[in-house]
Structure formats: structure tokens, C-alpha cells
């Protein structure tokens, strides 16, 4: 990002002068890199301020463009709020939204999807990887079902990009939301993939103005953010296989140690999940108290970053009670974590749970 902070500060839309040219070339190269990462074409990438905006654009943009064809959308109860909230907004406008349940392991049951599709269904939105429990949805199968019903398929791949291979052709995805900051890129930059061929997706812009991004998203983007995004994508792809193995080993090691505690269950699917994700529910402890004890040692969360105060809607959808959902921990392991750290965290956590249990009303 740094060379572009100072040397090439131009507005990429200002083609009249040298500063603008350089910025535009950098943005174009980034567009190519990101497109290639998901097997798309550069003109199918619309840069946005992040996955929230990409999801809003996909869902509201398709709903507005296909108004005449139908007003029914399908999504899943465990989606990120950046999908659920735009859907809820559309409901206030008279759209109908089906929120499919998930199985106990967090995966969508495909027959439920097939039966939910109606003649007036215009969009199916299913996330690639869940942000809380790491569960990977069967995208290729979902894509196949959507394609055979001629319904557009959107996937929120914010958590999946750079962590699992994504191929919009193989998966029959029509729209895909991406964000940089989940793969070591900057915050405030993301993209929406919008299929241009077979089928050509119609999208009503949700930000009107100067006609940037071929009229699909107005506003001035920051070249260093775009470049930082593409570098992050490139680095993640280069390391995808080795890092997946490494994170999986760390995660499994952590999980093995935590299983020495009684009353600990894994949330989500045992192997259809992100390599760096471990989400567990611990019986008979107060989740908030546990987080507090752990805080000096380890940064983790009880749910997604944006909804820390309510019980997780994802865990509720798996069939947990509100109480259980609150006593859950999400570990998101990353590139810089080590075996020593993992062992230390496991030890501190086990001790914390034992001591909380000893002093608690539960015992």
C-alpha cells in the first residue's frame, strides 16, 4: 500500500493528467488479480467499501433489477447480519424472504433449498464460510440447484476468500461478496463479483453518482486500499495450501487439549469448516465471566464482532439455548499463531473453566 500513499495519489477517474493514469493502472492490475483469484473476468469485479456494501449491493441491487420477475428471496438463518439485514429491509418493501434452517452441524440441507424455490424466486443467498462456526456450505451443489431453476445465486465469501479455493465457474456462482480485512488486507475495501456472461446479471446500482465502476458503484476509491486488497489476495493464494495445513494442525491441537474438559462440544461441522476456526460451547460456566478471565491472555470472541451483546443467532439456529449460546467461544487462528501460543491458551482456558466451575452456582 505504501508507495501509493505518497507517490501516486491521483484520483483514478482523473484521466486528464499523469497522476490519474498511474492510479488507474494500479487499480486495473488489482482488478485482474482479484478476478483471477475466483476465476472471473476483470470487468466482473465491482470494488466496494467492504463485504457489507457488497452484500447490500447484491441483494438490493438484484431485488430492484428483477422486480418485474418476482419478489421472493431465499437465504439461511445463519447468514451474517450484512445479508440478513438487507433482506429484512426488503421485507419492509413487500418482498418475501425465506430463511432456511440449517442442520445441527450448520450445513444447509439441499432438499430444503430445492423445495423453497418458487416461480417468483429471484435470488438465493448462501454464505461460503460462516464467520462464527466456520462451516463451509456446499456451494457447488447449491449453485447447481439454482442454475437448474434459473435463479441467481449470491454467496457472501467474506470469510472464505484466500482460505478455501473459490471458482465462480465451478460453483455456478452469479454474485460473490469479498472483503480484504479477513485475509490480512486493509479494512474498508471489498468487492462484488457480478457475472457478465451466461447469465448476464442485471444489477441496479445502490450508490448513484459519478459513474465509476462502469456505473455499478459510484464513489472515489482509494488506490492503496485496492492495491493492498489485491496483494493480500495474492499472498493468501500463494500460501493457501500450506497455511491450511498449518492452521488445521494448530486448531486440532487446541481442540484435542480442550476436550480434556468435560461438557465441551464443538459447534459446526467437524471437517467442512475453515481451517483456522474453532467454536465450542462449554457447559456449566458463565461465558461472559470466562471471557473476562481469558482477556489478559488471549483475544477471542463469543460470537461475531458486530453482535457481542446478544446470544448468537447462528448458535441458536444450531439448536442451542440462549444460555448455551452465551457460553460459547470462537477461536479464529491466523498466520502468526504458534504451537506454544495454542498450548498456553489451552492451559489457561482449562484452568479458568475448572476454577469458575468450582466457584459457581452450577456445582
Amino acid at each position, binding site marked *: 500500500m505504501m508507495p501509493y500513499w505518497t507517490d501516486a495519489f491521483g*484520483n483514478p477517474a482523473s484521466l486528464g493528467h*499523469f497522476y490519474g493514469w498511474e492510479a488507474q493502472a494500479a487499480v486495473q492490475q488489482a482488478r485482474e488479480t482479484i478476478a483471477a483469484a475466483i476465476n472471473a473476468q476483470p470487468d466482473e469485479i465491482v470494488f466496494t467499501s467492504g463485504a457489507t456494501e457488497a452484500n447490500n449491493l447484491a441483494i438490493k441491487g438484484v431485488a430492484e433489477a428483477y422486480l418485474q420477475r418476482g419478489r421472493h428471496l431465499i437465504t439461511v438463518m445463519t447468514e451474517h447480519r450484512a445479508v440478513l439485514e438487507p433482506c429484512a429491509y426488503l421485507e419492509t418493501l413487500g418482498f418475501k424472504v425465506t430463511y432456511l434452517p440449517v442442520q445441527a452441524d450448520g450445513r444447509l440441507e439441499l432438499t430444503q433449498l430445492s423445495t423453497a424455490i418458487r416461480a417468483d424466486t429471484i435470488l438465493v443467498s448462501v454464505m461460503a464460510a460462516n464467520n462464527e462456526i466456520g462451516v463451509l456450505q456446499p456451494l457447488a451443489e447449491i449453485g447447481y440447484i439454482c442454475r437448474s431453476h434459473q435463479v441467481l445465486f449470491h454467496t457472501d465469501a467474506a470469510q472464505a476468500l484466500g482460505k478455501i479455493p473459490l471458482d465462480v465457474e465451478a460453483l455456478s456462482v452469479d454474485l460473490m461478496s469479498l472483503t480484504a480485512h479477513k485475509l490480512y488486507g486493509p*479494512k474498508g475495501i471489498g468487492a462484488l463479483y457480478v457475472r457478465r456472461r451466461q447469465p448476464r446479471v442485471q444489477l441496479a446500482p*445502490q450508490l*448513484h453518482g*459519478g459513474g465509476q465502476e462502469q456505473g455499478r458503484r459510484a464513489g472515489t476509491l482509494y488506490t492503496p486500499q485496492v492495491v493492498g486488497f489485491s496483494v493480500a489476495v495474492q499472498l493468501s493464494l500463494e500460501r493457501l495450501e500450506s497455511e491450511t495445513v498449518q492452521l488445521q494442525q494448530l486448531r486440532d491441537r487446541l481442540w484435542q487439549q480442550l476436550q480434556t474438559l468435560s461438557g465441551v462440544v464443538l459447534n459446526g461441522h467437524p471437517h467442512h469448516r475453515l481451517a483456522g476456526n474453532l467454536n465450542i460451547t462449554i457447559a456449566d460456566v458463565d461465558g461472559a465471566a470466562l471471557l473476562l478471565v481469558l482477556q489478559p491472555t488471549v483475544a477471542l470472541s463469543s460470537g461475531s464482532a458486530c453482535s457481542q451483546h446478544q446470544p448468537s443467532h447462528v448458535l441458536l439456529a444450531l439448536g442451542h439455548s440462549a444460555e448455551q449460546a452465551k457460553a460459547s467461544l470462537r477461536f479464529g487462528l491466523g498466520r502468526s499463531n504458534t504451537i506454544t501460543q495454542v498450548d498456553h491458551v489451552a492451559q489457561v482456558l482449562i484452568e479458568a473453566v475448572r476454577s469458575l466451575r468450582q466457584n459457581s452456582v452450577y456445582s
Partner: protein
Amino acid sequence: MQIYLDHSATTPPHPDVVMRMQQIAQNDWGNASSLHQWGDRAALVLETARMQVAQLLNAPDPETIIFTSGGTEADNWALLGITRQYTTPQHLIISAVEHPAIAATADWLATQGWAVTQLPVNGQGQVSPESLEAALCPETVLVSVIYGQSEVGTIQPIQTLTQITQRHGALFHTDAVQGVGHVPIDVQALGVDLLSISAHKFYAPQGVGALYVRPGLELQPLLWGGGQERGWRSGTQAIGLVGGFGVAAELALANLDAEQLRLSQLRDRFFRLLADEPRLQPTGSQQSRLPHHVSFCLPQAPEEVTGRTLVRQLKLASIASSAGSACHGGQANPSPVLQAMGYSKAIARTGIRFSLGRQTIAADIDWTVLVLRQILNRLGVK
């Protein structure tokens, strides 16, 4: 030597801004919504910037500042956040010289059945209070008038327009993207309900801006999701950019008076040096004008010579200028702004803008004027 005179398109980030962004990228990269220490540090960065921006605008409370992805989003949000609260279409008033972020959003609202009135402007690009008075009706819910016009530099009488609007029970928004950081803007003195800002027009990065929302005002979110920005604007905040935005706001406030004076003197020097040049006619208001903004049209140029021709020639001489504003620079269409001011289609193709900045010095102006005259000679403009 390269001379950058396109600060209205975007500005080079101030070194202090770059340093802050670098610090944040390395040390404060957390997610401000997380409950752990990394989250706390990110939240501190955000709230510091919110305070710095609030101070620049003399906002009554930092919480009135909601960060967005830029001026375009702030403009869209102001219009859509108000109008989408109505289940049946009402009436919206804008001016004839708005930025596309407002004009195109108003066009979209018109397709949804909203009545949209475009207030006319005079030859200097100014809206008259009388025409606003005449356009307001009981169905009017919102009036949006640009603060400082990006192509011709004219500053509108926002305080007066706000008072008239509010007397009729409607809300007032101004797109102050070109004004903030260059002229003193006090949202409380102006009395506006909503005001759009973009950071990259005053030495902060692109891709970040804010909407000022007057306390107590109801506004529907534009981006739905995780409920960041106290539920007003979802999406993980671009913390590096926001931190840079805050520093730029603080710097702008500290230098506001001195820099406004310095730039307006350079601006006047530019106009004065070309006062004897009939081939270049100043556009926009001379009295009520952005301090860093110089613009002309070519009243008698041959048809093949447009503003873009001049911009390209100046580029060969390493001088950055602009024909129209950057966002619609892709097209050689006549400027809607100049047409609204009464210029013919032919003349409306000849607009050219020089916008000055903190590194601009008198020699840059003198040199540019010299080069400009040579180019006009070479092109055979009479």
C-alpha cells in the same frame, strides 16, 4: 517540474496523515467492534477521529459525525435516508448545479415517483432565495443545495437557504465536499440538518467521508448489516482511512484562516494575470467563491478546441488541470453546470478548472498562465 492544480479532484495526503495511516496499519489494525484490547485500540482511533472531524465543523456532539466510504455515499445516504422513510412519494428540491452524487440520486428518486424540482441558477451559478421560496410546497420534505460548486467554485448562501427551508417545515442538506477544510464551516451556525464531507478533498485519503446528522434527526440506514456506527451505517470501518481523515481535519482547522487567505490571494493573482486575456472568460462567482478555485471557459474557441483539449496540452507541459469534475471527466459532453448558468452547448464544452492547494506557490500560477497563453496561441484560439 510538475504542477498539480487539480485539488478539487483530489489532494495529495499530508505527510502527517500518511504517517498516521502507517501507524494504524501497523499497530491499530483491530476491529473496533471486538471486545478485546485490539478492538479497544481501534475504537479509540475511530472516536479520536470522530472528535477531530466534529471540531472542524463545530458539530454539537462527535456522535453527529457518521463515517462513510466517501462523499458519494454521504450524498446518497442523505437523500435516500430521508426520502425512504416515506411510503408514498413526496417532493424533493435540489439545485441545477449539483454534483452527480446528488443529481443522479434525485433522478433515481424521480423514477420512483418523487417530484423533483431543480432550482435554477444565475450566470454566476448562484441559487436565489426567492426561487427556493417559490419552489417549496407542503409536500417538500428535503432541500439539497451544494455548498461550493466543484466546476465553477461558486459558494451558495446556505444559511439563508436553510432558514427558508426550515421555515416551511422541510429539511436541509448540503453537499459541502468542496468547502470543508477550505472555508470555515459551522454546522450549528448554518443550521443545516445534514452535511456531506469527503476526506480526500483536504489532504486525507480517498474512500472515506462522513455525514453530519443533526441531533434528533431521523434517518434510515443505507447500508444494512452488523450495526456499526451505532446502527446508522453498517460495515467494518476503514480504520486507517478514518484515522487519516481525523488528522487532516485537525490540520485543516489549525491552518484554516491563514490558508484561506493565502489561497484566495493566489486565486486572485491567477484571475488578475489573465484579466487582459479575452480568450479566457472566468466562470462562476467572483465574490462568493471557493478560495482555491479558478475556472474559465473559452467564449470564442473553434469547435474542435474544448476544455479537454486544453487539459491534454497542459498535461504535456506537466501541469495537472481538469475539464469539468473528475467523476464525469470520461465524456466530452457539454457541462450541465455551465449550461444551467446560461452558456451555450458549444461554450459548455470549453470549461477548464485549476484548483490550488497547500503546496501551490505564486511561481506555479505565473508559469501556468504563461503556458496557457502559449497553448491558446498554438491552438489558434482567437
